């Protein structure tokens, strides 16, 4: 009630901030576009369903075979055609991808820090990022071999017909989930998953997968450059189709996490007490872990390993809104979106584009050190 109202207040404010960051980011680039024109261009691109047609082809991002939704554009502001194309066709997908990835990583980081009751926990702690990296790197090194597996009957009779980029994302996603499940399976005995064991299993699996990645890099030959770029984290090359997939996956998972926010608060008291307060502990842990792993996998599958978003954004927001996850989780997620969009804007603002992972780490680490030194963050 009052907590949820407070949560909604913070969320509204941070959503507005995210919107502002998105518009500002879309205005910045080699071609400077006034923010007002950005808004107009975005509005121009908005479409609303206007009915179902079976004949004509849709113009929106989603086209269904056979039956097609007819869309209609409610706005038609006069905008320079090149600017329209730059904003909607080039910058916006990348920016929205950044917002979604930052949102996902910060949400997962918040949950992991609470779940492990450990300030150093971040979304990659259960091996998700390492697993994603192995999947992605393996596909980059052996694209032909791995593409072929997709047509095997075992995987499915359908040839997914993945593009190269989608192939990388697909294998990263699969790798992330396999690694997370492996960590979970290693740490689970007799239906119980002690958090400390999970943490250690995560470290072990990450170390092992690090070795695999290193080996694959040795085998990489000329694709090494791509591997390095992927591992550093990047948002370049995001297409509307990537955004669409991520936008479908992330919000429901976030909703699951939000629904369990109160349980997560109680879990902070320790599992035994949480159980005494009516929390079905093991089930809640499975749900939180599963949703966090999936949302992280969705984030890293496309963008690669982007560090620090999931680590420092939750800490920063905890200082501002307090530890109650009902408020913290949406706040941190929205702030994570803003943070990554801003970082990516910096990354592409210079004459040479940097992988965004470099920017988040370069900005995030000193800030984290500042928090440590000022004792703002000393414990959970």
């Amino acid at each position: 009630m009052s907590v949820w109202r407070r949560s909604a207040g913070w969320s509204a404010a941070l959503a507005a901030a995210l919107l502002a960051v998105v518009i500002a980011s879309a205005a910045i680039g080699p071609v400077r576009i006034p923010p007002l024109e950005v808004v107009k261009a975005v509005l121009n691109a908005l479409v609303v369903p206007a009915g179902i047609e079976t004949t004509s082809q849709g113009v929106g991002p989603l086209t269904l075979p056979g039956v097609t939704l007819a869309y209609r554009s409610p706005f038609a502001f006069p905008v320079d055609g090149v600017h329209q194309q730059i904003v909607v066709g080039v910058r916006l997908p990348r920016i929205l991808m950044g917002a979604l990835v930052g949102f996902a990583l910060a949400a997962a980081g918040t949950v992991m820090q609470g779940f492990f009751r450990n300030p150093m926990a971040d979304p990659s702690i259960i091996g998700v990022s390492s697993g994603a990296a192995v999947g992605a790197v393996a596909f980059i090194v052996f694209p032909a071999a791995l593409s072929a597996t997709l047509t095997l009957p075992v995987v499915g009779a359908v040839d997914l017909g993945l593009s190269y980029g989608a192939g990388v994302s697909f294998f990263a996603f699969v790798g992330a989930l396999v690694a997370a499940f492996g960590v979970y399976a290693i740490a689970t005995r007799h239906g119980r998953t002690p958090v400390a064991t999970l943490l250690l299993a995560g470290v072990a699996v990450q170390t092992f997968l690090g070795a695999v990645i290193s080996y694959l890099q040795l085998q990489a030959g000329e694709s090494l450059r791509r591997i390095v770029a992927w591992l550093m984290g990047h948002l370049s090359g995001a297409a509307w189709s990537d955004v669409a997939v991520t936008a479908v996956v992330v919000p429901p998972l976030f909703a699951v996490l939000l629904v369990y926010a109160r349980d997560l608060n109680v879990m902070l008291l320790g599992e035994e007490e949480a159980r005494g307060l009516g929390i079905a502990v093991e089930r809640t842990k499975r749900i939180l872990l599963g949703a966090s792993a999936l949302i992280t996998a969705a984030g890293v599958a496309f963008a690669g390993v982007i560090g620090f978003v999931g680590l420092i954004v939750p800490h920063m927001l905890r200082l501002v809104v307090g530890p109650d996850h009902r408020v913290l989780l949406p706040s941190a997620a929205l702030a994570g979106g803003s943070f990554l969009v801003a970082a990516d804007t910096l990354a592409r603002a210079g004459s040479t584009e940097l992988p965004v992972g470099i920017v988040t780490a370069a900005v995030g680490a000193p800030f984290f050190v500042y928090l440590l030194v000022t004792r703002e963050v000393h414990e959970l």
Partner: protein
Amino acid sequence: MTAESPAAGDGPDSVPAADGSESLPADDDTERSPIEVSDLAVSFGDVPVVTGIDLRVERGSLVGLVGPNGAGKTTVLRAIKGTLSPDAGEVRLGGAPAESLSAREAGRRVASVPQETNLAFDFRVRQIVEMGRTPHLGRFDGHGPDDERAVREAMDAAGVARFADRAITEVSGGERQRVLLARALAQETPSLLLDEPTASLDVNHAVRTLELVRDLVDDGRAALAAIHDLDVAARYCDEIVVLADGGVRAAGRPEEVLTARTLRDAFDAEAFVGGNPATGTPTVTAFGAFGASDGSDGDGEGESAASPDSRRVHVVGSGRPAARAVARLAAAGHAVSVGVVPEGDTAAGVAADADARAVTAPPFAAVPAERRAEAVSLARKADVTVVVGEAGTAVEADAEPGDGTEANAAILAASDRVAYVGDDGEGGNQFGDDELLDAVRGNDASDE
């Protein structure tokens, strides 16, 4: 939404608190004991911790769980809470088998105050107490008026309202303990489990906490508390269950259970159980087991009188020194008698508590002949007569017929063996436990 609500699966009794705060599930059989444990066995791996535990806590009853460290008190509490699954036996909460209850249902039947807690993050005290309402809330419920009232009442009762808005990480250990109690109260369950509720509290807060628990129990709740302090247990509990070696050693009203013999068996310590003049409840004074080489037995038959070192001892002397000797010797398992002492003498009172025979005579008067004869007869049967403090010096002084000193002389004359303790010739009356016990065993220079 993708998340399933447990409320949906819990059946009709999970509708949150629509019928008021004391929302026992409607189908709950209130006749049944809030907590029933039968033949409970729990082991960690291959190591059995407790076996064959039977206990029952009724409404309006505070049961104290006492026992030495490692006896399994916390294990029993955890099994009742459901955080440990028993290897055998059953825990029933309000008549329903605990295993059949969801965590949420269990959380509405029993609340627990843990010994320690890891309160991470800077939650406010109020937020911690509000977490006590968790088992009453559906997944999407906010706090309703009932919840807010319960939280307010719990904070008032536990005395935490004053610092409700401070961070939990900033309050003292004692305050934190009371926050946990408030959280348990906010749960509004028919049963409370407390694990060392006063361990980190000062005397004032310890007493206030237990009086609060006592009040809650008198209002009809059931409470089971693991308590280290036997005096506290005796003072506040309706019933005491003594756990030792993984089993129930004794159970019953405090005065029945807290006996020197039970305590010797359970704690392997020599204890004197007296009456506390301020509270009228038993008070326990424990001594380290003297000559523990033979004290630690595994069999339940370790009756104190049967221990090889047990003697019949008659104590001569009066006042506090004699009282101390009687208490200590009785605690060590000796069959003690004392006399002749004046009626109302401290030694006579202690003898009554220690089940020791006391021969008394009216003060400031001649010792009646039959009393004197009784004392002489006790001394004759005793293995050793212990003369405490000044009594020894007095006996050697000139005795007049009929006074106490003369009676003592006759007693000493009838004794097989006489040992003097605490007589330094200057009326000091000081003696150590070892001196006393060695004197009785007869391996000390003070033998005749």
